[in-house]
């Protein structure tokens, strides 16, 4: 009985860890897409953020400077995306995909030329990373059955970014549905003309959204390289940006459901780690690659089954032009 509880707690614990970058990237995408700008470039921003954070942290020795660098890199990428899709009214998907390629190539290239470790940054340790925080009373409550276990293992003992990610969900919900900015953000993604004729700059509003997007996804990237891992390695985002986008679409561009979907994907990922190497009845041992593919296969299945009901912000992907 106890062992089962421990197993479950461990799986849930790693669910949380794996879900954090998805949550941050999903919320990031939410701001961008609610403002009417497709953000397929989440993946690239996540990767660029991860690299910049690890590189800065390795050089300066400060995780906080690393975090800032991660946000900064994401801001640069967001800025390019904004320039292409808001000012030059280009195709947002193409701009995003281009940024993804740019991030993949640039991080490897810069990593190799700066650190000469085949694209890896040096191993980070101590203050170069965000370390687990033990919440108050976690130790004292450890002996309380079940609750102590949950509090001590599941809730306590994560790094600061994890808590930021979970707090960002209700904050985003509040901003979106209870603030003036949120009203305008939702409006500009549905009908930018309504915003323009109300005397508000569509361009400015969309850039504001992109800035928030960059900050969140930059934090997500930093999480990958200087909180979850101890350094950057090639293509370490591994499609998480895409999955976050899928989660966002699943959640119909709403923060609460987005959290749940991200947790579900995190859970699938956690289970995948647990069942690697296990021998199943009848099937026998399943190749690692097949198990690793499981979350992605489920993503495709779920998306194919549910996406038909998701209604995107109406003006998404359409550059705004004052027409004659």
């Amino acid at each position, binding site marked *: 009985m106890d062992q089962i509880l421990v197993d479950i707690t461990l799986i849930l614990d790693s669910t949380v860890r794996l879900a954090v970058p998805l949550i941050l990237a999903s919320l990031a995408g939410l701001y961008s897409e609610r403002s009417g700008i497709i953000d397929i470039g989440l993946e690239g921003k996540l990767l660029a953020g991860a690299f910049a954070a690890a590189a800065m942290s390795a050089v300066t020795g400060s995780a906080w400077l690393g975090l800032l660098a991660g946000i900064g890199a994401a801001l640069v990428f967001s800025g390019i995306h904004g320039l292409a899709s808001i000012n030059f009214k280009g195709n947002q998907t193409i701009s995003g995909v281009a940024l993804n390629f740019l991030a993949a190539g640039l991080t490897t290239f810069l990593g190799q030329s700066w650190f000469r470790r085949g694209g890896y940054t040096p191993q980070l340790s101590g203050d170069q990373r965000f370390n687990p925080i033990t919440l108050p009373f976690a130790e004292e409550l450890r002996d309380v059955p079940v609750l102590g276990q949950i509090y001590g293992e599941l809730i306590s003992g994560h790094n600061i970014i994890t808590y930021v990610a979970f707090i960002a969900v209700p904050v985003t919900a509040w901003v979106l549905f209870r*603030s*003036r900015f949120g*009203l305008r953000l939702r*409006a500009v993604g549905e*009908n930018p003309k309504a915003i*323009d004729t109300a*005397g*508000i700059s569509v361009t400015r509003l969309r850039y504001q959204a992109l800035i928030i997007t960059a900050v969140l996804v930059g934090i997500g990237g930093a999480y990958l390289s200087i909180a979850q891992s101890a350094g950057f390695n090639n293509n370490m985002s591994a499609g998480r940006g895409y999955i976050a986008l899928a989660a966002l679409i699943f959640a119909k561009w709403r923060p609460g459901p987005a959290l749940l979907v991200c947790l579900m994907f995190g859970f699938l990922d956690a289970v995948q780690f647990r069942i690697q190497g296990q021998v199943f009845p009848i099937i026998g041992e399943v190749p690692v690659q097949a198990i690793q593919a499981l979350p992605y296969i489920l993503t495709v299945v779920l998306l194919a089954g549910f996406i038909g009901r998701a209604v995107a912000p109406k003006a998404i992907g359409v550059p705004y032009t004052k027409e004659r």
Partner: protein
Amino acid sequence: MTGLNPTNEQRSSGAAASALAIELVGINKHFGPVHANKDIHLAVKRGTVHGIVGENGAGKSTLMSILYGFYTADSGTIHVDGVAHKITDSRHALALGIGMVHQHFMLVDNFTVLENVVLGAEDSALLTPTLNRARGHLKDLARDYGLDIDPDAIVGNLSVGQQQRVEILKALYRGAETLILDEPTGVLTPAEADHLFRILGKLRAEGKTIILITHKLREIMAITDEVSVMRQGEMVETLPTAETSPEHLAELMVGRRVLLRVEKGAAKPGKVLLEVENLVVTDDFGTPRVKGVNFQVRAGEIVGIAGVAGNGQSELLESISGMRDQKSGTIRVHGNALKISGDDGADRARSAGLAHVPEDRLRMGLVTKFNAWENAILGYQDSYGEGPALDISAARDAAREYMKKFDVRPADLDLKTANFSGGNQQKLVLAREMERDPEVLIVGQPTRGVDIGAIEFIHNQIIKMRDAGKAILLVSVELDEIRSLSDRILVIFDGQIVGEADPATADETELGLRMTGSHADNVETDPGTLPEHETPVDQTLVEMSPKDNSGRDTN
């Protein structure tokens, strides 16, 4: 948010200095090579309804967009309450008390009425207190101007007329003293239009200034105090409405004398060319929309189908032209039954000698991204060239001839069709269908969204077809058009032909009643209209309705 809602005291002190609410002086605006506004002068008196008429592309909407700060003029000044202002954006215009109700509504469909009204004029960064205050304000406005609407309704679920009221509320909520309405009745049903004019009357009575842009002369005559006429980017004349007439205005708009009445000789009906028997047609959801219709159209006559939009006319047209399968019944062209089912129905109808000018040229009549010559042969492309090859030069020759004969302007074969005005697009469709020399021509809404000058031309072409011995079936929601063109009128209501009338003797009121399914001795009040208001416009409106309820501007 302080700049957005200047108090009434501030504004009325300005108003005392001048009776002019708005004065535009020497406005010029270019779009690339197009000179959309040429040295425009316009003075609008406070507390009046000022009409601006002109054909599509005359520059009315551009001028108003400049006043509203949506565009910036190349030169010229704008005076509001006698003070010169440089209006840089819509926010500035709103702050000066200028509100605009756009032709295509600027609303967010999945927001509530309340959210739409406060959008951009929120008085705090928090939404809940803003919405609560706005709710109270909205209640006052609803009471004062008869703009009753549920503040929590989702805008996308409202009727077009209600959405328009939300737009008006939006402007009033922002403290608008001058209200610009751009083609407000284009999308309204007659009842909704009547309601709108009652609201406008009420606004005028409360001292608001209204600028009404339209190309419908009857609306100008019915409600405006003064009217300005624009033509090809220039302001032609401003005169008191009482001293003018529709004929005079039409002449000013087009720049030459226009016949508002169609002149035609008596019909000489020959043998029956189109026969419809017990036709039943369902819509896309399987609901019957045409319920057992019988009629005949003879050679050399025009049969008009009158009815309020949505009573089965569209399905009837689509069925006869082979675009929609019939459920039961027979259609005979020249005595041969058309077995119309399957995807090539339209092609078979064409080969049987039937041509079709569809109701919605943008959706069904044209591919707007194609060049003019491509659209001019569309549907008949197989007659140019052998096998899979298209004889482009033959097609272009044909298109050139069509465009010359039907006076399509500009006569540019390679211009994208979307860039033609609504009237010229329609002429292109008519040329394509009429020049094939069909035995039977069915025409839906021939002049929807078409300029006065082009309407005259199109009507004359239809009469010419009739005189050449063709059978013509005409469907229009413009009762005037039906009456002036048709030799016989069939009234359709709820998918059934409920009466036949002779256009020369038919009584307009009686026709109107039949179109709504009632008879003179059994008058039902339209549930769409709200309680009557005591405004002088009402009387004129009785004469006006029913009017166009679906004419869209296709610019």
